[in-house]
């Protein structure tokens, strides 16, 4: 009886989340039929003429499509790798610190950028890396000629990935730090009695102890392979770096909301969602297999 009361209260807390999901993710799915229409706002989703696969066919003909899908996968795979490895190393280093106060302050400072939006951080990044900005100032001290960082297509993916990892590593480290607290102290004690060095303890106790978390996070991030981060790219990119920086989401935004090609934009978005869905299903089975993580 008491138990049921408790769960009601939890369900109630889920409600806002579900409402959000319904309004912004489930309901808009009906609009996907636009991908198979020549959408005309006056006639609406119900009345617009059907065109079958025309939009998809045109997408395939476009040079852009290859570029944007490649850029998306390239940038997001790099981000996923960076966002798995950097926080892991950071968490392990933090874990070696014995001073509780220092540990807490470093952790807090490191995850602060996570709470800033890309609109703000984008502006800061552009200033930092501008021709007369601090970074170029520093470089010129070493005799390097000033570089217009955001004006170079070859540097853009690196900057995007680097800044994203910098923004998120503190926050992502929390998962590892939580897992690290789950490792029993007695394991470390017996290891040190057996004469294991700190380094050996890391390899034989710490890493195996959090391996499930590492595998789980890796597998779950598979679903994000086609999400290269609209907020970030949109606030950092410009036409000079389209060849390496334009991703599916920014392209969909420009075609749909700037150039009024609703159906074409929807088609590109649908392809992205479809591939993303397959990846999530795959991730789910892999998670079950290697990390014994199930939802259903």
């Amino acid at each position, binding site marked *: 009886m008491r138990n049921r009361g408790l769960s009601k209260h939890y369900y109630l807390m889920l409600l806002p989340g579900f409402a959000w999901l319904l309004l912004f993710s489930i309901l808009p799915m009906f609009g996907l039929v636009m991908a198979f229409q020549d*959408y*005309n*706002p*006056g*006639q*609406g989703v119900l009345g617009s003429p059907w065109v079958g696969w025309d939009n998809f066919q*045109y997408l395939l*003909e*476009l*040079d*852009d499509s290859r570029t944007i899908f490649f850029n998306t996968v390239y940038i997001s795979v790099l981000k996923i790798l960076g966002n798995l490895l950097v926080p892991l190393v950071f968490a392990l280093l933090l874990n070696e610190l014995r001073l509780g106060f220092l540990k807490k302050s470093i952790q807090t400072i490191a995850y602060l950028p996570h709470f800033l939006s890309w609109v703000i951080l984008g*502006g800061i990044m*552009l200033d930092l890396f*501008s*021709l*007369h900005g601090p970074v170029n100032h520093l470089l010129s001290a070493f005799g390097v000629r*000033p570089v*217009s960082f*955001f*004006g*170079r*297509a*070859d540097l853009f993916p690196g900057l995007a990935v680097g800044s994203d990892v910098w923004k998120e590593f503190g926050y992502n480290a929390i998962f590892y730090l939580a897992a690290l607290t789950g490792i029993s102290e007695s394991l470390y004690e017996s290891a040190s009695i057996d004469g294991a060095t700190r380094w050996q303890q890391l390899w034989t106790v710490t890493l195996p102890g959090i391996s499930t978390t590492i595998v789980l996070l890796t597998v779950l991030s598979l679903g994000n392979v086609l999400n290269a981060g609209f907020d970030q790219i949109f606030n950092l990119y*410009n*036409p*000079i770096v*389209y*060849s390496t920086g334009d991703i599916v989401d920014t392209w969909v935004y*420009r*075609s749909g*909301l*700037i*150039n*009024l*090609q*609703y159906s*074409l934009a929807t088609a590109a978005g649908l392809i992205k969602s479809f591939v993303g869905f397959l990846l999530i299903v795959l991730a789910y089975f892999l998670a079950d297999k290697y990390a014994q993580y199930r939802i259903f």
Partner: protein
Amino acid sequence: MKKRILIGFTFLLSLGAWATAQAADPYGKYDSPVTINIGNRIDPTGKFPEGDSPENNVYTRYAKDTFNIIVKDVWQSSYADYDRKLNLAIASNDLPDAMVVNDAQLRQMLKADQLQDLTDVYAKYAGPLLKAAWAKTNGTADKAVTFNGKIMAIPGITVPDDGYTLAWIRKDWLDKLGLKVPQSLDDLEKVAKAFIDKNPGNLPKGTTIGIGGPQSGGQLYGDFLFHSTNNNFAFDPIFSAMGATPGYWIAGKDGKAVYGSIQPETKAALAKLADFYKKGLIDPEMSVRKDATEGIIAGQVGIFFGPWWHGYWPFPDAMKQNPNANWQAYAVPLNASGKWAPHSGNSHTQFLVVRKGYAHPEAAIKLQNGLMRDQFTFNVEATRIENYPIRTVIGMPDDLLVARKAALDVLMGKKKIEDFQGGDYRSYPYLLDDIKSLLLVKKPPFDNFDIQYWDTTSPKWPRIYSIIVGGAPYSNLSFKVSQLPFYSSTKTIETKWASLKKMEDETFVNIILGGKPLSAFDEFVTKWKAQGGDTITAEVRQELGQ
């Protein structure tokens, strides 16, 4: 009896005529309040006098007092986001009663059958000023908004001068270095180089910018579709000097329309610009910089390109930082045959439209009538004129030339203020006010227009300086514009232009910045033709009747 009926009948007739005359008065006030819902463009940083707001200010009260029109904002957005917000409204078919749209949006709304036919309403309610400006366009206004014989929008009418891109140069820097105003492209290069090497502005080392460039996402040159006029901080005059007209449709060797960007002249001009950039003559942060006006306001830029009206923006801000910056406009650089050959642009880029089914389409037109008749009486210093509901810029096409000539005649003592009252001058509502402001703004000598002979702090300075200095370079020149008058869309432009233009922008900016070799141009041309460009060319020729 018969007579009585007749008298009664005549009375009724005249009553009827009186009633229609009343109803069709362009400036008439409604008996009961009429509400008009609009999507309002606002400047998020703009200020209002105490107690006012975008929805309740001197202009909305003017609408209420003059016409009994209540203006309601169904949504508000910044200028930068307006198109996106409006596109959403169009896509979801959830429209305000009246709105200001661009050519692409106009066509989209036509296709979606969202527009009210304004033919009758225009005939009945357009004010004399609106009709006079419309008639002066030589039919381009009609052509821009007539579809299947019906008037579907009220076109904005701007001066063609907005389309000419001039060279604005720091004359104080020229004078200090003993340089003449550059004429050829080579002269321009030498001047830019001297500005950087000799640092006439006494700026910290490495911060002088010879030629200002576009900001991030800015245009390298105007284009026929969205930015045919008012293009600034771009390189149009350099292209023009080399005989290139990228972004516009021009007459090819056989006289038929070809696209300017894929011509060899454009390639040569790009090579020139890449050379300038490599030599450091162009802003090294072009196309990356967030705001192209930064360098001009800070006094770092020596030359930039833009239309006549830069006295409005950003010079007032530049004057606050550096009151001696003597910005003068010139019709240079000249082309190989020593001529100035700019491109012009479309005078109709904005359109006032009414949602289909709105009960009072004439209310939108009345608001424009009121604006055109009374705008010069408004205190635009206290509340910016941009806050006027659904403001569409409509003026006489020769407004600038007439205003400039009048101003000079008065300054030189050839004419008096009284000469400009009445007659044809009634169609130029700003004119009298301009002439009256002259002596408040201009200091003697009246034939020298250098910056020290102006009161740059006067609120009238931006307009008068723009008219006299910005209008000066070409007022006595005879010149031919380089492009064909095609500024609209075709079936294939609607679907394929975005990706073609993206390819163009990306290729050209990278050629200038040195990220791609010049040979990327040839590759671009091949791809452009194959990916829809040839089809579009055929369609444009058909539209032009070739």
